């Protein structure tokens, strides 16, 4: 019994110390490098500029947002958490790939479906060609070949030479 009590006391201590360490792990924002900020910013789009990624946008607002990312990184947030935060605040257009699962599926799955359909249609055509008889000869006859103007030109050429 005392052994179990000691164990639970150790557990509580462990949790407290772990939390303290976790809190201390919140870094000073100045230690977050620009590259770490850009790493997150690359997956985001400037919420107010037309189609401009957040890592290359040069406006004052984008500068502020990158600083905001720096603060969030210093607070210990992960890449995905920051992106989710941006999307919640500014809408789906802030993210380079939509976070919402329906939209994500709609965007990413559709092209593969299109490619599969195109491939299926192409396969139908190719297989149809394969099923025909090799070396087929056009059966119907006609009084005059199709390209009369070329024929005439040749005739004229031959007559001239």
């Amino acid at each position, binding site marked *: 019994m005392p052994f179990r009590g000691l164990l639970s006391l150790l557990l509580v201590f462990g949790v407290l110390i772990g939390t303290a360490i976790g809190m201390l792990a919140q870094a000073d924002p100045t230690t977050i490098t*620009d590259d770490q900020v850009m790493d997150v910013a690359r997956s985001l789009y400037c919420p107010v500029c037309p*189609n401009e*990624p957040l890592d290359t946008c*040069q406006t004052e607002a984008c500068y502020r947002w990158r600083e905001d990312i720096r603060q969030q990184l210093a607070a210990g947030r992960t890449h995905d958490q920051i992106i989710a935060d941006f999307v919640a605040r500014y809408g789906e257009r802030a993210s*380079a790939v939509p976070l919402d699962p329906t939209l994500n599926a709609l965007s990413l799955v559709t092209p593969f479906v299109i490619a599969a359909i195109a491939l299926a249609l*192409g396969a139908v055509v*190719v297989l149809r*060609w394969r099923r025909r008889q*090799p070396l087929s000869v056009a059966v119907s006859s006609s009084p005059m070949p199709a390209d009369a103007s070329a024929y005439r030109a040749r005739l004229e050429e031959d007559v001239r030479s």
Partner: protein
Amino acid sequence: MLAEVGLIALALAFASSVYAAVVSLIGARQHRTVWVDSARNAALLTFPLLALSSAALLIALVTEQYQIAYVWQVTNPTTPTFFRITALWGSQQGSLLFWCLLMSLFAFVALLVNWRAHHRLIPYFITYSMVTLAFFIGLVVFMENPFARYWIVPDATAADGVRVVYGVFIPANATAPDPVRLAETARGLNPLLRHFGMIIHPPMLYLGFVGFLIPFAFAMAALASGDLSTGWIRAARRWTLVAWLFLSLGLLLGGRWAYDVLGWGGYWGWDPVENAAFIPWLVGTAFLHSVMIQEKRGMLKVWNMVLIIFTFSAVIFGTFATRSGLVDSVHSFAQSAIGTPMFLFWAGVTLISTALIVRRRQQGALQSEQAFAGLLSRESLFVLNNVVFIALALAIFWGSFGAPIVSELFLNTDITLGPDYFNTVTVPLFLVMYVLMGVAPLSAWGAVSGRSLGRAMIVPGAAALAGVALCYLLGVRGAGALFGFGIVIFAGAVAVFEIARGAAARQRAMHENPLLATVRIFTRNRRRYGGFIIHLGITIIGIGVIGSTLFQQETQRTLAPGATLSFAGYEMTFNDVQTGQIADDGRVMDITRLTVSRDGQTLATIRPRHDVYPTSPDQTAIAMNIPGVYGTLENDFYVLLVGLQPDGSATFKVYVNPLINFVWWGGLVLIFGTIVAAWPHEGQQAPARLRRSAAAGPPKGHATA
């Protein structure tokens, strides 16, 4: 005076194109040669008239006629002459006029060159091309007129009794505004457009776009006239190659410009407007390949019609999306009233052409030859080629337009799809494309056994493996990258191999020396061997794209003056910065000086700078970051000045882009190959024709009477 000349020439061009369209239609239906000749003359006349109109605008730009609103909007007294000339296509009205000029030029040349060989198609060709031209000239004349001018009119309700009005026609009691005042307030061109690339990127792109009108008009003429033999294909194919050449050039130049000037370290942003220019290129490439099947075996007639119409529809859609503000883009023109007519024109062109194909098909035309083709034959591989290109075009359309529009309309959410989406979706398709590029030339028309195809692949395959080994030795480790390099090198090896094989065969047959043999195979069969050079160019571009996309390294650091940064094997020392330097056009430049070295050896001094352009007080200043670049074949060391800190230090963004110069060199090879392939060959007609018809056997491909 200039404005009047320009306006009258423009109006006459409009009338001429409408006349040509109507009269050619009547002449075609009633088989009256006189009418068609008259229409042809009217069509030919549009080009000199539009040239006159454009010249008027150009002169107005160069001689600073600020009363003309367009001149006021795109230039100001500080604009250098070079940019005055390029300002002709700098904004909506001028660029539309320029578009019309190029379109009429293409029609002009086509009517002169193709007049006799395809005179069956010419009447309807004139109709369709002139209807399109009339539409665009109409947009210029009635909606976005570059010759509108500013006038002062008396207005009792205004502060000083006068009001500035903008219009084409002179209002009552109007006087011209003071030229000095106009010159002072003139706006000037967007600084992003003040670059050497401006002189050539838009014209090349426009030439590419409007070039596709010609094959489209021939296709429609074939449908309308009922002459559905391969006549229209022959006319269309070379024009498609010409348009494709310019479009490729335009795309490459756009990428190069973005890389040089826009300061984000890349050359392709998957921006909707960029993609709108890429889609016609993709569909046009599919057409160029699939057309060979119809020429050789008489198959895929309907599909080729669909392809060329799809290409032209993509061109019109592209220009509609760019000019109407359908999607947000850095390329967009300001929103304008021409959006609605352009949408209607696009919808009309697409639906009417499709309906025509369906109707002809229902009537029994466009019957395919009942020919056989094996699974690995060139025909089947070309079908797969079409599948890949169409899938690419549709996927890119979906990412730029489809998904954002559908999501906004039906799910009420604005989304943006960026490089992450496009890279995920297009890379597998591009890889398949390269594989096909390698395998298809080794295959043969009709049928080929797997074994012979496999045998043919041995040598290029070995070369590809050697290439991969070389990459590994040079430090490439990722499996994906090695695989990609392998596929791309395989495709290039096939191109080189085929050229070598052809030269060797000719050398044996004609006993010529190797060099002469190589030159001769090119001149004897420009299409085929020019095509191989194009493939080689695509391979080199592919190597550059893989290198610069997968292995790009970037970092951003702040350096104090004198400090050194080590990155990717390079050392970069920040020497000093000169702030507040004033250039000729009034921009304020902060120029930094950096020394780049490697392993202790100084390589170069580069000068990334930050330019701020002067604007009127109520507008936000426009700033640009011009990179400093040290480039070799191995990579580019590319530095941007992001900002200057108050304490004198500077923040730099450094990119190392491996193999990026392969992209530009590959582009040059591609252009060269296209010129070779498109070069007209006279004097070759008779032998080729006789040989072809001898091999053709019994007559085929006739229309049902």
